[in-house]
């Protein structure tokens, strides 16, 4: 029987074990030390590793990203925490224009093995500036890897793998998942980047979901199973590089695909997924249009009711998936 811990405990355990194993690993960010992190992810780590390896910074996301990029360039393996994904806009200059380019510009003779960890997503009543999902901005940048784990097991294995990866990795956690529990082995293990996971096998319809939408899709699939609709759920886990093979195989099997993500639909990752499927041999297996269910075209509102309706919920997924499974579209 594997022990169960929360998603945030799994993040902490991955960082702690990797820091114990490798002295080059350190954590840098706002309130990561004394306060233990805005979501208590690094709680207790300052006491364990001291202020040299758990570095509290001023409020300067550009500084955090720049320090991490530079440290990585000279051989360290920094973990930079950006308190809310919304603030990665400020870190982007270092991340996108510097970290992502270095390895190419030095002809492979320099690497930049940093991880930028950041929580995304809405659902906490934190309004416009603390609720966004910007993953697709970084997916668009060659030189970056983008990881989006959805279970405690995945988050530990993928974070350790990301720390050991020689490229800059944007590691996107979800606030609503921090308290979710699941089995996580105590020993260290890694999950390769670019490997999707079929979270539920099914025959009638494929849902490709990211972030918290994986859990919501699983709940929707359980309910639809009672109606005899058998749904397969593919969690890409890594958006760049993307495991196209698993997704295409699933769509070839079911012939119908619904893409669900929290980020705004226009320009979101769903468009990329849809194109990947349409360009592949899965095209000839499609029985219906590829559908996307995603965030509405608005900033996340402060009002809790409006916030709820701004992103897909279980009932929305049920409705859309049912329509598609029953070939009403």
């Amino acid at each position, binding site marked *: 029987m594997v022990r169960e811990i929360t998603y945030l405990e799994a993040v902490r355990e991955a960082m702690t074990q990797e820091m114990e194993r490798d002295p080059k690993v350190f954590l840098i960010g706002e309130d990561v030390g004394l306060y233990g992190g805005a979501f208590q992810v690094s709680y207790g780590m300052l006491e364990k590793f001291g202020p040299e390896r758990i570095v509290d910074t001023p409020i300067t996301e550009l500084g955090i990203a720049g320090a991490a990029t530079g440290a990585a360039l000279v051989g360290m393996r920094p973990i930079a925490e950006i308190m809310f994904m919304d603030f990665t806009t400020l870190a982007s200059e270092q991340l996108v224009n510097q970290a992502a380019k270095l390895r190419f510009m030095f002809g492979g003779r320099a690497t930049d093995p940093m991880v930028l960890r950041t929580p995304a997503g809405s659902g906490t009543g934190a309004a416009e500036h603390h609720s966004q999902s910007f993953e697709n901005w970084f997916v668009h940048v060659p030189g970056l890897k983008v990881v989006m784990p959805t279970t405690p097991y995945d988050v530990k294995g993928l974070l350790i793998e990301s720390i050991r990866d020689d490229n800059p990795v944007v590691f996107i956690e979800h606030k609503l998942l921090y308290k979710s529990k699941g089995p996580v082995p105590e020993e260290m293990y890694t999950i390769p980047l670019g490997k999707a996971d079929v979270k539920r096998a099914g025959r009638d319809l494929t849902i490709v979901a990211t972030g918290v939408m994986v859990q919501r899709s699983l709940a929707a699939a359980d309910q639809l199973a009672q109606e005899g609709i058998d749904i397969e759920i593919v969690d890409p886990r890594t958006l760049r590089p993307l495991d196209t093979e698993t997704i295409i195989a699933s769509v070839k099997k079911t*012939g119908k695909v619904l893409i669900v993500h929290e980020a705004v639909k226009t320009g979101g990752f769903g468009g990329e997924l849809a194109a990947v499927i349409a360009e592949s041999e899965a*095209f*000839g*297996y*499609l*029985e*219906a249009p590829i559908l996307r269910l995603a965030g509405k075209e608005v900033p996340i509102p402060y009002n809790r009711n409006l916030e709820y309706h701004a992103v897909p919920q279980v009932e929305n997924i049920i409705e859309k998936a049912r329509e598609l499974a029953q*070939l*009403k*579209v």
Partner: protein
Amino acid sequence: MAIEVIMPKVDMDQETGTVVEWCKNPGEQVKTGEIILVIETDKVAVDVESPGTGILEGVSAKPGEVIPIGTVIAYLLAEGEALPQGAAPTPKVESSLPTPPQEISTGQVVTPVAKNMAAAHGIDLNAIAPSGKGQKITKADVAAQLAKESAPVVAGKIYAAPAARRVARENQVDLAALQGSGPQGRIQSNDVFASLEQQDHQTQLQVVAPIVEPEIIPLIGMRRTIAERMTANYQNVPHIKFTSRVIMSGITEARNTLNAVAEKSGAQKISVTALLVKQIATTLRRHPYLNSSLKGDEILLHQDINIGVAVALENGLIVPVVKNADKKGLAEIAAEVNDLAARARAGKLVNADVKGGTFTISNLGPFGIEQFDAIINAPEAAILAIGATQLEAIPDESGQIVARPIMRMTLSADHRIVDGAVAARFVAELKTVLENPILMVY
């Protein structure tokens, strides 16, 4: 002033009626109360009396046609009167032409969005079935109707799912020849597979034998009712079935005695069916759950014991009911069973004859069937299937093999409300009663 002849509503749950025959011809003078046509509901055939006096004209429903109730199917005209203008009787035909937006006439509530959307697309709100709260027509209802009406037809193009195109390509099927089953007529891969199967089938048929078109009989009237009820009852009611073997010596003896008396007095003979109806009704009094119905969250234990007797017709079957059979004498029951059966075969049963049954028996003994089980006639809780009485070799009390008349009966009961033991006790007691007819009067 022309008098309208409409398809009448003669039954509570009737929505349509089938014209069986017209008894009067167009141009013929008819009087109030004269039979002008015969219609058939899903239960019975009904003679329709003339609603007035006049000349029958404008007959628009042919025998065999299924007509919604209230539809005008003919007129009665005065001498020299013409058919009403613009009211030429036409059976309801769905128009395929787009109709201009209409104000809904039935007092139906429509949401403002739905109303605007319907107007923008020229959709007739009257044609939409509401699904919203409080029977409101919502945006979703209009969208569904729009999807139904507007097939994306582009000249020279085929509307097909990518999967259908691939399967067609791989199997050299011409998509242009296929009908799509998907939304707005989109051809799905299943449509291509179905056409492939059909091809295979036709090829096989061509090799084996020339195709002879089957005779097609429309599923209407009684046949449709039988089809719908049997399916519903078989699917919705969990049946348990118990068979018991009854020694019929006692009944045969009792019947001989009774009929000897009847012959002397010139009364009708007592049939086996009449005896069975009486004995079953008597026994049911002590087994209320076999004479009950499951209705929603309640079990209704019926106080009346009304025994339905299945009667085979040339083209179906019908179950006339002997009401309060437990309270009637044998001679009365015998006369009633004979009368009901005769009228059933003549198609002369009225609604009251087939209503209110609480238990049904079906006797296929006359066909030599030894044993069978029947589908429950819901909402009744049970049906008894009676087999033929035949001489069989069985051991008597002393172990000697003797020949006795044996009848096998099988009870099918609704297992939701009748437990196995409850059904078994009923069957056991009925067997005892049938074998000892004197218990009927106990």
